[in-house]
């Protein structure tokens, strides 16, 4: 379980100080799928970064099964991310000189996962694993990025606008893969998006506004990627 207790995060100092998070309290259960919604500048990406250990909060605590990762040193945070966390970014960030398969190995090697071929097949890229990112479409690149994140067998998958750079059809397809894989592998999924429709696929929706949680809403009947509007 992930618990955020009274988390503050600010950037800069003096007059240029910006409060990105202002006392956030939230809990994410194991295996849950949470969507963080909010407009640009609402603090949703900062919340994702702080929760995932990419950034440390200015004050407050981020607890994983009772252990406060905000007190971790750099090396400990790196080890924590290595063991527990997977990332999917809006811009994919694949290594351009490596094939899809090698990009997936970036995650697989960290978990000593020899069966990473299965995850490539699971995202439907078995036939394209020898292709370079430049030879793949946007949707295919994002699927490689998902496979890369899942190949390290993370407990929690963090997604920053995973469909933000994709058209509707491809976005739905990528989202569908994610939901199916989550159901199959049982990891916790925390996604940031500004697309209100995507929230309908999640178990719980956290709405951010000006650095605070404006609303937390449970969704008893999550929809599939093809049932939502876009």
């Amino acid at each position, binding site marked *: 379980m992930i618990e955020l207790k009274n988390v503050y995060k600010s950037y800069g100092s003096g007059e240029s100080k910006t409060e990105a998070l202002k006392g956030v309290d939230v809990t994410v259960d194991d295996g849950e799928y949470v969507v963080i919604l909010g407009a640009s500048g609402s603090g949703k*990406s900062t919340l994702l*970064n702080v929760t995932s250990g*990419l*950034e440390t909060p200015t004050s407050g605590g981020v607890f994983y099964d009772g252990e406060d990762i905000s007190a971790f040193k*750099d*090396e400990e945070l*790196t*080890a*924590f*991310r*290595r*063991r527990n*966390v*997977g*990332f999917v*970014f809006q*811009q994919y*960030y694949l*290594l*351009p*000189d*490596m*094939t899809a*398969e*090698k990009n997936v*190995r*970036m*995650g*697989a*090697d*960290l978990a000593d996962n020899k069966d990473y071929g299965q995850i490539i097949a699971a995202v439907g890229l078995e036939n394209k694993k*020898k292709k*370079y*990112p*430049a*030879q793949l479409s946007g949707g295919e690149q994002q699927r490689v990025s998902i496979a890369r994140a899942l190949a*390290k067998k993370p407990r929690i998958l963090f997604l*920053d606008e995973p469909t933000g750079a994709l058209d509707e059809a491809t976005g739905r397809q990528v989202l569908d893969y994610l939901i199916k894989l989550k159901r199959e592998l049982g990891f916790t999924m925390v996604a940031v998006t500004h697309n209100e429709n995507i929230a309908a696929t999640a178990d719980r929706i956290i709405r951010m506004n000006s650095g605070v949680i404006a609303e937390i809403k449970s969704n008893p009947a999550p929809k599939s990627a093809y049932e939502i509007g876009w």
Partner: protein
Amino acid sequence: MLINVKSLLKLFGVSIVMCCAAFVCTLFLSYNMDIAGIKDSLSSDAAVTLYNALITTGKVTAAVAGGCLVITSAVLLLFYVKNYIDSHGRDLGILKALGCSNMKTALRFWVFGLSVLAGCAAGFAAAYLYLPAFYKLQNAEKLFPDIAVKFHFSLFLCLVILPSAVFSLLAIFYAWYKLKKPPLELLKNAHEIKNKRNKQSDKERSFLSELRSNTLRGKKSAVFFIAFSAFCFSAMTQMSFSMKKLASAQMAFIMITIGLVLAFVTLFLSLSSVVKEHAKTVALLEAFGYTPKERSKAVLGAYRPVSYIGFAVGTLYQYGLLKIMMSLVYADIQNIASYGFDFVALAIFLPLFVAVYELMMFAYSLKIKKTSLKKIMTE
């Protein structure tokens, strides 16, 4: 303006190398030109032999040292132009899309020649300040009458104006060649796919070892410069050590200074460029949980064998060069110590090289460790 002063400042490496080239060439060529006036007045055989040896030494040194330095500068300049076009692909693509011709855009690259002008002018001026002392040094045995330092406009033209003009043209034509792409390709900075495959299959090679070899394959210019910096360090330090025995301490000092400046400038620039280019990869590796050691090993570790090979080649090169110099230039001169491979120099400079190189690698590893994770998040 597309290319600003800040862009030019990044070319200080070219300026420093050209400064060294102009300094060495001005010293020896000016001396050769001034000493020519006393040739007919030499009466003793010893003086004539020394005269011939000095003239040949001057020509060989100017050609070898100057030539090497000029070639290095040219490669550095091309490397900068390529990097500039790669990193400003969007601006250049927009210009091209708006109808600006390749040549019109390329002509703006003439300003890169200013870095050569600055370096050459500094080297030329520094050489003229040092020339009186150098003339005395060359005539330490007092076999010649005293020679006055004269200003040679032809030297100024050949060592300052001409290189600046040639390097400006080189920058223009290389930029023109590199701009010959469709505007969209420049805008997207489309990634070239390298189809060269490794002998080892993808399955066998781990991600980190693949990344290490990709780092080398993808940045051939850095491979060249890191090997070159090790080569310079090795060749110039060991040669200067031997020169101290064969020629003079001052000659050795000039050589070791040039060698060290060249070695550190190229190593510094290459490593900075490697770290900068891989910042995104390093940040991504960090996000995924790769340790600082794994990250720096993947990016910098690949260059370690390259630098040691550079050192070995430099050692052989300086030995060969001195052997040839001794047999060609000093063959007729008596009382010159015989030259053999200098194991003492190797014993001193190899550990020194390892220590300095590893120290620099360590400093850059710290830089890699500090690469911000937010870098990839905010782009």
